[in-house]
């Protein structure tokens, strides 16, 4: 490792000409350089200023009040989605998916959307701490360098424990750090481990790799508890691929078939065509049975015997096998299980079905999960034996999410160094507690899928004294180069050459920065399958009468984002509950235990020192023998949100002081056959007789009218229409069109002419997975406040988008329909007529405008809104955190108390696009305006456009056979239409209420 001697033209010098000058000038030029760079390549530098207030004198090149976009990469999880960060006056205010990005294709999940708020978390660690006392970096560097040298001198063990790292430059830095140190090891682990997939491929294909999955290539998808639309590995990428084949249109009425086997209820299961309940311990045999059935169809000598015979789900498995076999080469089997036996059979099935190289690929493996559970287990042993001299932890929180057998010896590690945001449990145990840069304030790179390189750019200078792992390691090696120089140099030396020398490095790097990523075209050959690798063990014994399954929840995932109030208040797509985790029980099991939702039970899990109390949530579609509890809760310090909502004398705290939001069960997980398992835990349930309030945004979970209250013949409401693929392909319209298509029935003359534009939205319910990315995207865009648990339980959540979730079916076949519901901008808006002060009026472009200034707050409009999408400011919601306020969108008013609000169709974006078109002297084109929810949607289920333009996409969607307006029969003429769900089931399949529309 050469010491830093920058030559002209070296490193970032061409970007930032001040790099090789004396310190004071350098500092000055850095600040100036930040301004220049922000217009084109923002954030290649760190300005010395620590001010977070909007600049009084703007940096050169920025136009005050004008947004600019920075292409970067999301680090909310390891999926590495491409992101465009919208910055205003030198600070990021909103993250959006990068539509050009080859993996995420423009979507960004709820977790990614919320990253911008985490940046401004005022409780983040601001400066290094040694033994709990503030210290400066110079001292930390000095002490750690000495300690490392000392350990190395006596041949001691240094361990680096991280989450998945796919950043080439960071990995290179680690490699350099490790060079020559035989005692060093880098252990990667994922709290949501899929290590078994990698292990299984090591066995079956000789490479320890995670395949990249191409759901868009599959005609038939069989998923065994892989929640690939919600939480599994790379949900945005997978959902976008999945949706390509899930939305038949009038010309091409075809779609893929998706069959889900799962123990709990997930958004993926909800979207499936067929769903079966399968306990985690039944998976191995079920997948084996599937393989056996496929082998039977493939002919030749079968390797698996006895799995299918007498299987509880024999018929559906055989049916599925036939469908998969028919789709040979276009079939995909996936499993979320972290059990090597299950994954071995999955690999076998995919091999039999000719999937490798087509629907999944090892030639171009995914690097989004690289954790190795065996390494973690080994580290645990080392720690327990006191063999580790120095443990550096970065991007991981083992004290929180690993089994307690890991966390306990952690504190005894000779020297614990933790580089993190400081909010995590592990850093609280550390001698050296070091602040990590947030992804939006640091430079970096990533390679989520082999050959797909993406870049991170700082959108704002470091708010605090954070460093990246790469920078920390460089400093410990005495390398004083700036972090971005390290990245750039790595790209110059290692990545650029792979793209051939056709382009100068500077141009190549510049283009990559601008685009956010570069992609290698070539891929190697698929490794060969070793047929002898098939696992032998088929049966996994149930852990007892009842088994505990820990599952990740949309948004909070492994809990790394538990300090983000947006995610805490995001209603879970499946249960619609906020601010808590709970024990999901099936209806039958709950009845047997004599409990209902909100009853407190005590869970005794062997891995935990004491029993934990959790409220019950009765979940239709849940396996009877499985109690499911979400991971990601019980994070230390989450009582910071106790008073996140308005405080008044009848309000209750979101969480008691000193307590945590939800309960953490992750330590009860265990290493089982070398893999971290949280789905096969014995558990005992004890009913306490107490109750605990759960704050849900939806109380009535189906479209069915409660028993005994339904008018005859109207037992089910038809807000969501569903059709079967067969009926749709046969050209049938939606039943009930007679009363739904109440078009030109208008006694009143049109008094709202829309001469230029008529904004409208269409939502494809066939593609909507309920993932809730739009909810958080809208919240970020429109300054929607967080109101806290008490307010949510009083049904006063403020989200402008509500994702209605209606469960359907009984027993095994439970699925759910999702319907994003927001202001429908009715042409005959009931709300407009009733406001006494004209605070809600119709625009000449068909928008139903809410005028906050004029609103006196009678709530009459909200009462009369048939969709109940209006939100009232019951209080002045807290906005005291000035750092957090930096996220607020300057284009949108922060509403005061007593004022009504609602979806505005992102009026500010419409205005911005119109101004931009006017400035460029051109007409507004279809697609110029992307509203926030539309932008965030991973499946492009939401479309916005101009109905006055008959050629616009939205006009075309409005004319589709699947299009209908909700409550159209009221003749309020909503400007939003929904495209009916399509399920790939035979015509007239019973068991679902909505099928009556076919």
């Amino acid at each position: 490792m050469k010491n830093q001697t920058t030559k002209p033209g070296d490193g970032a010098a061409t970007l930032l000409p001040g790099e090789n000058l004396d310190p004071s000038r350098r500092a000055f030029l850095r600040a100036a350089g930040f301004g220049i760079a922000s217009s084109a390549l923002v954030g290649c530098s760190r300005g010395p200023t620590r001010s977070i207030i909007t600049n009084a004198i703007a940096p050169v090149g920025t136009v005050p009040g004008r947004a600019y976009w920075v292409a970067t990469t999301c680090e909310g999880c390891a999926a590495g989605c491409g992101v465009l960060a919208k910055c205003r006056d030198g600070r990021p205010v909103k993250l959006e998916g990068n539509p050009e990005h080859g993996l995420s294709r423009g979507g960004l999940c709820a977790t990614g959307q919320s990253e911008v708020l985490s940046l401004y978390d005022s409780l983040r660690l601001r400066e290094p701490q040694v033994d709990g006392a503030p210290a400066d970096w110079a001292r930390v560097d000095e002490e750690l360098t000495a300690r490392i040298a000392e350990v190395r001198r006596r041949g001691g063990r240094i361990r680096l424990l991280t989450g998945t790292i796919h950043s080439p430059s960071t990995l290179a830095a680690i490699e350099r750090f490790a060079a020559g140190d035989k005692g060093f090891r880098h252990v990667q682990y994922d709290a949501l481990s899929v290590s078994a997939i990698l292990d299984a491929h090591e066995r079956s294909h000789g490479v320890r790799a995670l395949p990249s999955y191409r759901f868009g290539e599959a005609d038939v998808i069989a998923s065994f508890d892989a929640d690939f639309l919600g939480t599994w590995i790379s949900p945005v990428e997978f959902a976008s691929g999945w949706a390509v084949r899930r939305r038949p249109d009038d010309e091409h009425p075809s779609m893929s078939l998706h069959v889900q086997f799962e123990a709990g209820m997930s958004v993926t299961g909800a979207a499936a065509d067929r769903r079966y309940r399968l306990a985690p311990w039944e998976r191995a045999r079920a997948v084996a049975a599937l393989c056996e059935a496929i082998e039977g169809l493939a002919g030749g000598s079968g390797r698996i015997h006895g799995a299918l015979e007498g299987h509880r789900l024999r018929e559906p498995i055989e049916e599925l096998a036939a469908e998969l076999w028919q789709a040979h080469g276009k079939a995909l089997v996936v499993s979320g299980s972290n059990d090597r036996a299950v994954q071995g059979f999955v690999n076998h099935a995919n091999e039999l079905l000719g999937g490798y190289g087509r629907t999944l690929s090892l030639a171009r493996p995914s690097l989004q999960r690289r954790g190795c559970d065996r390494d973690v287990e080994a580290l645990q042993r080392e720690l327990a034996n006191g063999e580790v001299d120095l443990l550096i932890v970065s991007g991981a929180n083992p004290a929180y999410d690993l089994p307690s057998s890991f966390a306990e010896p952690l504190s005894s590690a000779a020297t614990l160094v933790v580089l993190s945001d400081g909010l995590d449990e592990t850093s609280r145990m550390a001698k050296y507690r070091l602040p990590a840069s947030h992804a939006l304030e640091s430079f970096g790179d990533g390679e989520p899928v082999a050959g797909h390189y993406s870049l991170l750019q700082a959108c704002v200078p470091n708010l605090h004294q954070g460093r990246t792992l790469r920078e920390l390691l460089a400093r410990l090696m005495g390398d004083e180069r700036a972090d971005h120089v390290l990245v750039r140099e790595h790209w110059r030396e290692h990545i650029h050459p792979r793209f051939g020398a056709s382009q100068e490095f500077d141009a190549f790097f510049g283009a990559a920065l601008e685009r956010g990523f570069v992609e290698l075209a070539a891929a190697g050959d698929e490794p060969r399958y070793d047929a002898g690798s098939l696992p032998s063990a088929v049966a996994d014994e149930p852990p007892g009468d009842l088994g505990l399954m820990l599952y990740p929840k949309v948004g909070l995932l492994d809990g790394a984002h538990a300090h983000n109030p947006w995610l805490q208040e995001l209603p879970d797509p499946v249960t619609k509950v906020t601010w808590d985790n709970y024990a999901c029980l099936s209806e039958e099991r709950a009845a047997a235990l004599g409990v209902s939702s909100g009853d407190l039970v005590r869970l005794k899990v062997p891995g935990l020192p004491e029993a934990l109390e959790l409220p019950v949530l009765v979940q239709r579609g849940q396996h009877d023998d499985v109690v499911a509890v979400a991971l990601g809760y019980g994070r230390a310090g989450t009582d910071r949100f106790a008073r996140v909502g308005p405080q008044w004398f009848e309000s209750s705290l979101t969480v008691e002081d000193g307590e945590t939001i939800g309960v953490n069960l992750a330590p009860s997980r265990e290493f089982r056959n070398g893999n971290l398992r949280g789905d096969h835990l014995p558990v005992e349930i004890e009913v306490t007789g107490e109750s605990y309030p759960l704050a849900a945004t939806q109380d009535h979970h189906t479209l069915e009218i409660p028993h005994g209250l339904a008018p005859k013949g109207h037992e089910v409401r038809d807000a969501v229409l569903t059709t079967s693929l067969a009926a749709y392909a046969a050209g049938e319209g939606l039943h009930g069109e007679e009363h739904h298509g109440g078009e030109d029935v208008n006694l009143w003359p049109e008094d709202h002419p829309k001469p230029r534009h008529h904004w409208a939205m269409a939502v494809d319910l066939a593609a909507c997975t309920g993932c809730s990315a739009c909810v958080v995207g809208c919240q970020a865009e429109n300054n929607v406040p967080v109101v806290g648990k008490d307010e949510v339980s009083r049904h006063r959540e403020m989200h402008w988008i509500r994702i209605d979730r209606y469960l359907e079916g009984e027993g095994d076949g439970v699925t759910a329909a999702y319907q994003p519901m927001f202001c429908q901008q009715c042409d005959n808006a009931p709300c407009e007529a009733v406001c006494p002060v004209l605070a809600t009026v119709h625009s000449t472009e068909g928008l139903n405008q809410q005028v906050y200034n004029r609103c006196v707050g009678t709530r009459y409009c909200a009462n009369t809104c048939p969709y109940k999408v209006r939100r009232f400011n019951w209080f002045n919601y807290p906005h005291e955190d000035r750092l957090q306020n930096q996220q607020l969108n300057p284009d949108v008013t922060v509403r005061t108390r007593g004022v009504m609000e609602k979806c505005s169709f992102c009026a500010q974006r419409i205005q911005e696009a119109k101004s931009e078109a006017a400035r460029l002297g051109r007409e507004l084109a279809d697609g110029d305006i992307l509203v926030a929810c539309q932008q965030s949607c991973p499946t492009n289920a939401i479309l916005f456009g101009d109905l006055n333009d008959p050629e616009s996409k939205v006009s075309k969607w409005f004319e589709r056979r699947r299009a209908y307006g909700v409550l159209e029969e009221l003749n309020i003429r909503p400007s939003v239409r929904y495209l009916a769900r399509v399920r790939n089931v035979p015509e007239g399949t019973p068991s679902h209420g909505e099928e009556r529309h076919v």
Partner: protein
Amino acid sequence: MSDSILETPLITGNRTPGDVTRDVCIPLEGRPGRSWYVGFLIAFSVLAVGGAAVIYQVATGIGTWGLNRTVGWGFDITNFVFWVGIGHAGTLISAVLLLFRQKWRTSINRSAEAMTIFAVMCAGLFPLIHMGRPWLAYWVFPYPNLRGPLWVNFRSALLWDVFAIGTYFTISLTFWYIGMIPDLATVRDRAKGLRKRIFSILSLGWRGTARAWSRYETACVLLAALATPLVVSVHSVVSADFATAVIPGWHATLFPPYFVIGAVFSGFAMVLTLMIVARKTMHFENYITMKHIHAMCKVMVFTGSIVALAYTTEAFTAWYSGSEYEQFVFLNRMFGPMAWSYWVMVSCNVIAPQLLWFKKIRNSLGAIFVLSLVVNVGMWFERFVIITSSLERDFLPSSWSGYFPTLIEFGSLIFGFGLFFTLFLLFCRALPMIAMFEVKSILPERKSAQSAAQRGEAA
């Protein structure tokens, strides 16, 4: 019903005009009795507690009420409609019965009108405090302004309310005041010192000349004619708040007559409640006789039956409409989570008043008093049921919710009652509660002359 009333004298006890003046003026001139103090203390305490709740709510936000994204109105508008309804009996008694020359009204019309004024004051407060930003409440008035000018929305039933209630209050107040002038002059003539000065101003120099009386009578009839359509219009407009909205359970053409008759029903119940108490405590048994009470009972049983018919019609219309939403709202109202409130309403408003068919009940002041309270409770629940049960479960099941009032909301409820009774008790002490000059006009002439002669002899 008037036949039976005309058979026997309306005023008993052989009162002379002088007696009338003395009887009515004594409460104004002496020190109040203990029962008044107790009553006032209770009423004022309730007002103070309720007022504190209202101040807290205005200072903190509407969130201190139990409303939510689905149910945007609860106690606030229930109280509003309830108090507007209470006011109706006053106008009906004073204006309509004046035009119909119903002489029995003379003993009760003054207090009934006072009740109207106070009830409308209470009613007017609720739309004010129910606003998210009540300090901007003046925006509901179409006044010339520099904001554009920004105008109000003439399509909004809430705006019609502003006009309807405003007109109603103005006319009622004027009518009440004009109707009081001769009596104020009587009080003036009996008073000394400061009271005399005050009543001199209030009585506007009334001298009781024939010309004054002639003009006075004309003015009263004119004002009565003006007030009469208000009996119908005010509550029709209030009902339009609901009828013009698309919410099933609100969106019904039946609402205007249904609300008007309900208002009269509840108004008479309130008059009865007040009169039974006042009659006893103020010793007005000779003026407010059982005849009056019977007459009001009959009005109640009549209007109560119309209310029952309205409930039936409403449910029938929902069924007959064929609209699943309408049908569901009524099934939900009757058997859903808030069914108890519906059945409270039916029991109080439909079943209980039927007892008044029995003469025995009509002769029992205690029973009538209880029934009048029951009807008031029932009519409060009627508004509550209409508002909340329609809102809580409307079109999309995802948004279905419930409604649980907070303590602050109960505070706002008692605030209305505290204000009403405080004002009414002050009225009892400060102004002649019975229209002396009108009562004098219906005194049984002969008997009173006799008694005067007797008294003269005794003297």
